[in-house]
């Protein structure tokens, strides 16, 4: 009998072996819950950065809007001050 036939024969006998009984449902669910909690925890600092960024950005945007409304062309301003004397 060569090594391949011996391998096949050994495999034939080994296939009759019942695998160990396992019940992993509880452990898997616990691992999944832990992972989910870790993901949420790792996102929390990012959420705080986003909130802080928004807190600063909103008043800045409002102030910028006001400033934009009151901006005028500096050339026109100079022209008005000189009473049209440049022409």
């Amino acid at each position, binding site marked *: *009998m*060569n*090594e*391949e036939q*011996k*391998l*096949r*024969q*050994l*495999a034939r*006998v*080994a*296939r*009759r*072996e*019942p*695998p*160990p*009984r*396992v*019940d*992993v*449902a509880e*452990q*898997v*669910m616990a*691992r*999944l819950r832990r*992972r*989910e909690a870790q993901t949420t925890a790792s996102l929390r600092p990012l959420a705080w950065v986003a909130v802080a960024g928004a807190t600063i950005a909103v008043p800045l945007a409002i102030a910028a809007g006001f400033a934009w409304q009151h901006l005028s062309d500096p050339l026109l301003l100079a022209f008005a001050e000189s009473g049209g004397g440049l022409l």
Partner: protein
Amino acid sequence: MSRDEDVPTDREADDVDAAASWGLAGALPRSGDRFADAGAAADLQTIRRVVGGDGNAYRALIERHQKRVSGMMWRFSRDREAHEELVQEVFVQAYESLPNYRAQAPFEHWLARIATRVGYRHWKREKRRPETVPIEEWRDLPDEAVQDLAPEEAGAKLHALLSLLPPRDRLVLSLRYVDERSVEETAALTGWSETMVKVQAWRARRKLKALYERAERGTAR
């Protein structure tokens, strides 16, 4: 002679990183299976619930498939603790990949691909054992004594014997000879092409033969 023995040359097969190339979303075709059976329909319904946000429904899938997965993973590790860890890992990875499941094949086939990948990675991490003891044990085992072995003993010897080979060779021989998978099924499980499976099986058998012959020469001296 089996049909995969006539691989023409001993050229090096492309060194595909099997684990990286195994897509999880594809189907695993297997003749004679009916996708529309009750079990598969129940799986599909449960998967929809899980993907829809009911994570607890996943427990039902685990309970339905853990026996089969345990059987598969027993080929990858005979250490009970490591074996249980592997079974858990299969279900954790399956859960994470579940949104990619396309239902083109029964869930159990898709799960088998994940199990194969997890087992293969386990072998890649594991250190190979010293090669002298099992090959000599195997060689010295009388042909007729193989039949008389207890299945557990045969399983342990087979495991020790295949552990002498690199993971890729070990994987292809396990699937082809131990699990009696066809070339097509082996290709689907590993993500290799059918030609690749044939070449890999041929090379693995050749390595095993070389080990066997080396052990014989060792005793002849």
